[in-house]
């Protein structure tokens, strides 16, 4: 009942994959080198770099933040906690009246609750929040997942430059403020 061809071809596929894994360079150089042939990335030793836009962790550029609370309000998981105060800032023009400016005392993001949706980064009118593709910030204690203001600013260095766009796109490439 045509039992043989399908089964044999099936064996051929798995056998072929095995040979391709053991001899990645084909028959020209039959040196068994499975590490190169297999798709496995041996994590602690080799690390696969995530793409530039990967949403790994949120970085805070403190100077831009004016504690307008938009991100805390728009966050679906309610995991951004901000406390600020008003203070006098040096006037822009020499001799002008000192400006009243909001400064933030506390800016915490609780990554235990955060679902990495990116609404806060989109909704921030002053470009204070950026995505960095870092993903290795797991903690033994869940309470440590609450990153405070300083920890979020540390992530700023890991924020990559915005990539140029594909041909035919009219969006302009944004700049990451130098920290």
């Amino acid at each position: 009942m045509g039992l043989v061809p399908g089964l044999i071809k099936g064996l051929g596929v798995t056998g072929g994959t095995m040979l391709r894994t053991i001899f990645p360079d084909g028959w020209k150089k039959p040196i068994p080198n499975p590490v190169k042939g297999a798709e496995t990335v041996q994590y602690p030793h080799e690390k696969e770099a995530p793409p530039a836009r990967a949403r790994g962790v949120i970085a805070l550029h403190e100077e831009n933040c004016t504690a307008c609370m938009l991100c805390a309000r728009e966050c679906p998981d309610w995991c951004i906690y901000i406390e600020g105060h008003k203070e006098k800032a040096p006037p822009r023009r020499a001799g002008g009246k000192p400006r009243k400016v909001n400064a933030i005392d506390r800016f915490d993001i609780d990554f235990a609750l955060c679902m990495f949706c990116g609404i806060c980064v989109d909704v921030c009118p002053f470009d204070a929040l950026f995505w960095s593709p870092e993903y290795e910030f797991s903690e033994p204690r869940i309470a440590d997942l609450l990153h405070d203001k300083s920890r979020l600013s540390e992530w700023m260095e890991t924020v990559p430059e915005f990539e140029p766009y594909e041909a035919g796109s009219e969006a302009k490439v944004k700049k990451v403020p130098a920290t």
Partner: protein
Amino acid sequence: MPDTDLARNELVARFAAHLGDGLLESHVEPDVDVWLRVSRESWREAAEFAKNGLGFAYFSFLSGIDWMPSPFGREMDSQIDIALGNDEASKIDQTIVQGIAGGETRFQAFARVNDIVNGLGITLKVDLPDDDLSVDSWVPVYPGANWHEREAWEMYGFSFNDHPGLRALYLPSDFEGHPLRKDYPLLARRMKPWPGIVDVEQMPGEDDNEDGASSE
């Protein structure tokens, strides 16, 4: 695509012819969709006519709507919306305004069936008076409605006459209350204070309270 508003108007006409005064109201959005509101008695008859008479063989879904605005408001920026029970609760207007194809009661059941051959879909609505939230079950016509009706029974409290087995679908069998009703509180949002409240304290010695970002 045939000129659908013709096709859709013709649909409504045939429904009106078949159901007589069973068809209470209808609304056609040309080239987009058609809604029909039928009386409670002719709910199953409308289904049979749609399936056998007009060739709407595909059962899409069946569910309920609760038209009373939620007494808890949106719980988003809780400075405006007030928890049920204190005096400001009355500020949220509780007037019931039905949607397309009207309606008189707070609860409505609605279902959607498709005619795959020429790509038409109709939404049928029915009013369920508060004192007797029951309607004929669609299971004899569309067996697929079985689970949808169990879900509506569980979430809204509608009961469906001669449904093979109305029992809990998602919720544990000893669950009281009907969660999708608007007056059923969403507990997740009541435990935690809302972090969006703006608490930027004023400058020391400053007493003008006009600044501070408005919460809207």
